[in-house]
């Protein structure tokens, strides 16, 4: 008899505990009418509150993110999901053509977006347009160069990609684990500037591979976004290949002794663009969100995004950051005529758009990357 009594109380306890656990969130957060959910496929951080909270509150929507790292990863994720899964896709600009070719994105209405406000270099971004049809809208970009620990290397030493071979950082060179930015930087080091570090002959590609393999003894690890971030922060890695201010900018704010420079061989520009997922039923809202992100309010949030900062392609975005955060505008060169202004760097051919390999296939580059990792 006493047994069943105990069982009863235990069962009661368990039930009420479970009940409390399930109901607590509902009580604590009494949302207004059910928000519309928008599924977003993006690099890490794009659906975090610091970016989307204002838009979510004003429009009663809720973003549900799936984060990826690298364009190949993005394509794989879309291919694995039924059409219509993702309403909005933030893609690397060089992959828009592939998204389009595979039929993963909807055509967009160019009249909805403020292209007049864009600096001319970004108005007709390669691959985003087919004749007058628009497939994707650039929203932000950033520059990749040499990222390093300022206690380990001097700024002069970091001014060349050869810094990665410096004995002071032996065993402490990390790679961001995606072939494109890393191989692009290696290609620049080999002097492949004309027309682009991604448009290279077979011989040049052989030379790039050989040079890359010679870096292997220096390498300490291959990291995803989180690993790159923490290994630079805690001093586990002293130099990092394939990244730029988008990682070190955040760490600097945290007080870490790290910095990024565009070395003399040149830097690489990454570009991020929004597209509408094929079969999305929420296209109007998505368009509204993209308009918001291109407005000065949205650009301010993008420039100062907590996960990783980036630059703005719009004139009003530059003005907004100059007013709201002059120090950040100065630091990132978002001032017309500034020596480090990204427009100027682009004009002086000191940065190149990141691209997919033109004379080899993506697979060749990817394959080499796997080989390099196990070498």
């Amino acid at each position, binding site marked *: 008899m006493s047994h069943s009594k105990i069982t009863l109380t235990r069962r009661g306890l368990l039930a009420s505990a479970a009940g409390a656990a399930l109901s607590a969130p509902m009580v604590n957060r009494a949302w207004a009418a059910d928000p519309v959910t928008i599924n977003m496929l993006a690099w890490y951080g794009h659906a975090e509150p610091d970016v989307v909270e204002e838009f979510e509150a004003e429009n009663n929507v809720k973003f549900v993110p799936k984060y990826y*790292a*690298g364009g*190949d*990863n993005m*394509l*794989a994720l879309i*291919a*694995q999901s039924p059409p219509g899964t993702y309403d909005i896709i933030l893609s690397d600009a060089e992959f828009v053509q*592939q998204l389009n*070719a*595979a039929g993963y994105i909807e055509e967009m209405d160019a009249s909805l977006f403020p292209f007049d406000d864009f600096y001319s270099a970004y108005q007709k971004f390669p691959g985003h347009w087919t004749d007058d049809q628009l497939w994707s809208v650039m929203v932000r970009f950033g520059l990749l160069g040499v990222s390093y620990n300022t206690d380990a290397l001097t700024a002069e030493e970091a001014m060349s990609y050869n810094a990665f071979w410096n004995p002071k950082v032996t*065993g402490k060179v*990390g790679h961001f*684990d995606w072939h494109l930015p890393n191989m692009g930087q290696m290609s620049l080091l080999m002097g492949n500037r004309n027309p682009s570090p991604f448009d290279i002959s077979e011989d040049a590609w052989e030379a790039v591979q050989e040079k890359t393999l010679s870096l292997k003894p220096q*390498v*300490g*690890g*291959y*990291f995803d976004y989180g*690993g790159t971030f*923490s*290994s630079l922060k*805690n*001093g*586990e890695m002293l130099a990092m290949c394939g990244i730029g201010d988008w990682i070190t900018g955040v760490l600097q704010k945290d007080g870490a002794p790290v910095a990024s420079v565009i070395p003399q061989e040149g830097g690489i520009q990454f570009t991020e663009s929004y597209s509408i997922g094929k079969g999305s039923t929420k296209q109007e809202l998505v368009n509204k969100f993209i308009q918001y992100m291109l407005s000065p309010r949205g650009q301010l949030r993008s420039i100062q995004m907590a996960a990783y900062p980036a630059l703005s392609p719009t004139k009003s975005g530059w003005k907004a950051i100059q007013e709201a955060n002059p120090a950040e505008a100065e630091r990132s060169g978002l001032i017309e005529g500034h020596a480090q202004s990204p427009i100027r760097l682009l004009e002086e051919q000191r940065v190149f758009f990141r691209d997919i390999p033109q004379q080899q296939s*993506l*697979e060749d580059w*990817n*394959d080499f990357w*796997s*080989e390099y*990792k*196990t*070498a």
Partner: protein
Amino acid sequence: MAKKTSLYEYAWRLPLILWQGLFFVGPLLLMVAMSFWLVRNYRMEPDFVFNNWDRMLSRDYFWNAYFVTFWRATLAAILASVLAFPASFALAFRASDTVRRWAVFFLIVPFFTSYLVRIYAWQVLLAESGPLNAIIGFLGLGPFTMLNSGFGAMVGYMTLVLPLVVILQTFSLAAIDKSLIEAARNLGANPRETLLRVIVPAAKVGLIIGFVFAFILSFGDFVSPFYLGGSNPPTLSILIVDTTKSGQQWPRAAVVAVMMIATLFVVAFAAVAAAYRKRS
């Protein structure tokens, strides 16, 4: 009677066959089939070609990863077996039943903490500027680089397998007939001889099963070599994840997976054969 109970009998027997057939054997067979498929424009197309096999098995990076993984798993299994043995021995022969029961309970506890969280804790503990190096620093040594190395990965493997190996060894040692050991002693065997010629052979099955589980778990683990080993070099599990990430190359990932399963089966069968050979 037999006829009358057959419906009843099948009602208990069939659920597993149906469920595991549909949701365990099915997926694995699909994966084997997939290894012969083709990928065009990031889409898989059913086919029967050997391209993926040809490609993966002719690449150095596959074999590099294969041997690294095999070597590390072997090392982890040996290390875990050796490290666990003295503790299992103490728990089996020197502890009271109550102590042993509590010890086993506490060894089960780790299975219910998130493995990821434990690995993250190690990542912080082992960092160059982390607590362990700070303590070592007080002694005037270090700092040592422990993360992003084979050592880091090995710490992770031990975190994963050590409790299980101790449990399995303890059970098999505790089950040894104590009079056997007494007899050996009475016949004048010294402790070392008793250990090697009586205890170890009698507990052979448990020791081998512990070894095999340590091997299987380390061989397939993705988290330790990635977060503590810095993917430097990548293991087969990391290769699988990388391959699925890059351009939807599932058929190639399937090739790696089939090779892994084949390896595990060979190791497991060899071990079971060794365990039950010449059983006295």
